[in-house]
């Protein structure tokens, strides 16, 4: 009898404890879930619904057009132009940033005198808002009164047509993106570099490995996870980049720097084709999801293979 009562009480206490734990769980998770629902899930679902309508400025709700916006996108040369520009920007900018960022990290790892101060200055560009970076560089590169053109001219050279030529504008955009975001790669790689086990390096030196050989066969493989993280993070960021383009080149000339983000912005906020703009944004989301998954899987496979 006593044992039965004790068992019953024990069960009740367990249930009460579970209830309390459940309440606490909801109490703690609730605000986060509410925040996610309001500011992430609802906008995502709303814009998804929007992408199936032909909502424009003069239209209050928009008609349901199913997949028409997506069908239009597939045959829209402007969409493919923007997709190509996004790809060029992502691969161009991230490749240079990874190489430069890693090189800088290796250089600062030599712990030269005064490197701490230089390191601090080096990361300043990434603290500036991209729109400000865009406007600032547009002024610096102004063909009539820009400081950089003046300096190049003073040295006796003919300055390039930074933002006025179809062939040059994307290169300029990549250059400015590299200027701003190489420090990000540098910081990630440098942090990893500081944490590398020194005994492996010393063993390599004892075995007679030179600096290049040590870097290639030991340092670089050990740095790969950090480099991969920085590259994926930067690729996603560069793919979404809008404000820099808005401030620097406004997608021109002749749409040579119009990326998917800018294309979506133009359709949504300049032409008020909200449905079409939402479809572009969702295509970007799909591209990002597929691209990021493939990239991460590739990196994981390489890491596993290396190990």
């Amino acid at each position, binding site marked *: 009898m006593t044992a039965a009562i004790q068992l019953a009480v024990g069960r009740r206490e367990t249930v009460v404890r579970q209830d309390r734990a459940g309440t606490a769980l909801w109490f703690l998770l609730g605000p986060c879930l509410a925040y996610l629902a309001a500011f992430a899930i609802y906008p995502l679902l709303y814009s998804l619904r929007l992408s199936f309508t032909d909502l424009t400025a*003069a239209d209050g709700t928009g008609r349901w057009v199913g997949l028409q916006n997506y069908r239009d996108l597939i045959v829209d040369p402007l969409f493919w132009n923007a997709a190509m520009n996004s790809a060029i920007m992502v691969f161009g900018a991230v490749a240079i940033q990874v190489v430069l960022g890693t090189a800088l990290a290796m250089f600062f790892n030599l712990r030269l005198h005064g490197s701490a101060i230089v390191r601090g200055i080096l990361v300043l560009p990434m603290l500036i808002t991209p729109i400000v970076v865009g406007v600032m560089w547009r002024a610096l590169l102004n063909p009539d009164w820009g400081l950089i053109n003046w300096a190049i001219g003073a040295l006796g050279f003919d300055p390039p047509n930074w933002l*006025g030529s179809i062939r040059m504008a994307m290169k300029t955009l990549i250059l400015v993106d590299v200027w701003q975001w190489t420090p990000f790669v540098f910081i990630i790689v440098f942090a990893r570099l500081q944490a590398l086990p020194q005994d492996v390096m010393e063993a390599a030196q004892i075995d007679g490995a030179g600096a290049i050989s040590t870097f290639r066969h030991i340092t670089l493989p050990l740095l790969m996870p950090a480099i991969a993280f920085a590259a994926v993070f930067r690729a996603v960021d560069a793919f979404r980049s809008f404000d820099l383009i808005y401030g620097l080149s406004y997608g*021109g*000339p002749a749409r040579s720097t119009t990326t998917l983000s800018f294309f979506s912005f133009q359709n949504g906020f300049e*032409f008020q084709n909200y449905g079409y703009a939402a479809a572009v944004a969702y295509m970007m989301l799909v591209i990002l999801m597929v691209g990021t998954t493939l990239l991460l899987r590739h990196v994981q496979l390489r890491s596993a293979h290396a190990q």
Partner: protein
Amino acid sequence: MNTKGTDPRAGTGISRRRILQGAGAVGLSGTMMGALLGQTRPAAAAGYDPKRYAGTKLSILMTGDENDHRALGDLLPQLEAETGIKLEITSPALGALIEKTLQNLKADRSNFELVEYLGFLTTQQVGGGYFEQLNAYIDDPNQTPPDWDFKDFIPGALHNVGIYDKKAHTLGQGSDVYGIPGLHSGSVIYFYRKDLFDAAGLKPAKTWDDFKAAAQKLHTGKIAGCSFIGANDFSLAAVDWYTRFITTGGVLMTGDANGKDFRPQVNSPEGIGALQMLIDVLPYAPKNVTQYGFAENVDGFSTGKIAQMIFWSTIAGPVFDKDKSMVADSTGTGPVPAAPGQKPRAIQGGWGVGIPKNVDPAKKAAAWLALTWITNKASNRYAIEKYQIDANRTSAFSDPALLKQFPYLTDSMQAIADADIIPTARIDEFFQMNDTMNVEFNKALIGGQDAKTACANVQASWETILRKAGHLA
């Protein structure tokens, strides 16, 4: 609404215009007139009480890209003193203004009782049914100041921003009023350097051949023979190409915007010819003209680096401002050049102000009273005198004091009177079509394609847009 015949309200009391004209005639300065106006009560009429809505707080959403908000900001204390209405100004740049306007127009309740909208957006915003019809207010002597004088608004400006036929979905047709021209109107005029032209024995260009010949003759290492909007900018198509196009006989659209036959004529000989004219004067333009937008041209002209150009008349403000311009005394104006046998004319620009339908109903009448105040003759005159903003009232152009002070007003008035409402402004897709044109034309100017290809690309792109929107079968 009665827009013809004798206005029964005319002549009652002492009108602001008469005070201003009188003051101008005896040489009173703008400051003194401001003081005089501050002491002048609006003319009283039976039932109209300017203080009826005293204590009401209103908000206006307006452009921050031009000087309109500055002029209105200066006048707010006077508005409050005369009407007791406290008006708050929100003035973002154009892009943000459009977005904010649309958000407010589509919301259950607009935060702004007054909204200033670009004339090119009248079809989108007024045609979308978002603005209150104003005829009842205009015709009500209890609601409208007797000296406000609706008939004084420039007809072209009124048709561009105020009048809309909802049944026919047509801008500028009928007599239903949804917006009041303001805070400025405008078109395109010809700016040239009198000193350079005189020294070279040239006369201001009357034809496009004259324009090119003058550009050729006046071009030096330091001064460009001419300039234009060469960047991928709204005004490349709207000002420089469109002016050349219509003044050489071009017709932009055929058919009906509400039918299925609204067909562009961009790749017509006139269309290609207009773009070719711009390409042909590239050697006499500033080196980087393909990156020149609004600001670069105004700066270039004001600092004496450009001999001639056609431009929005609204830039008269900075160009004739002696504190900001090095060529204020040596600049002349005239009508835009035109091909022989063609009338000089250009695009109709300007803004309108309306009352959104979804504002607090209790504030609509107060909003109307404030709207009549900010668009009255004295306010318009102040804006012209202080900021050289383009007028939206006919009386401003016949004011002897203003004309003496700002001779360009004569050309500005004529330009507005003869201006052409660009046919693409009759549909919602205006900005998208304009953008396509700017991109392709800019590409032609930087050598990426020839004029014929650029016009063919625009033609194809416009047809696709029009088909998608249902304006072309």
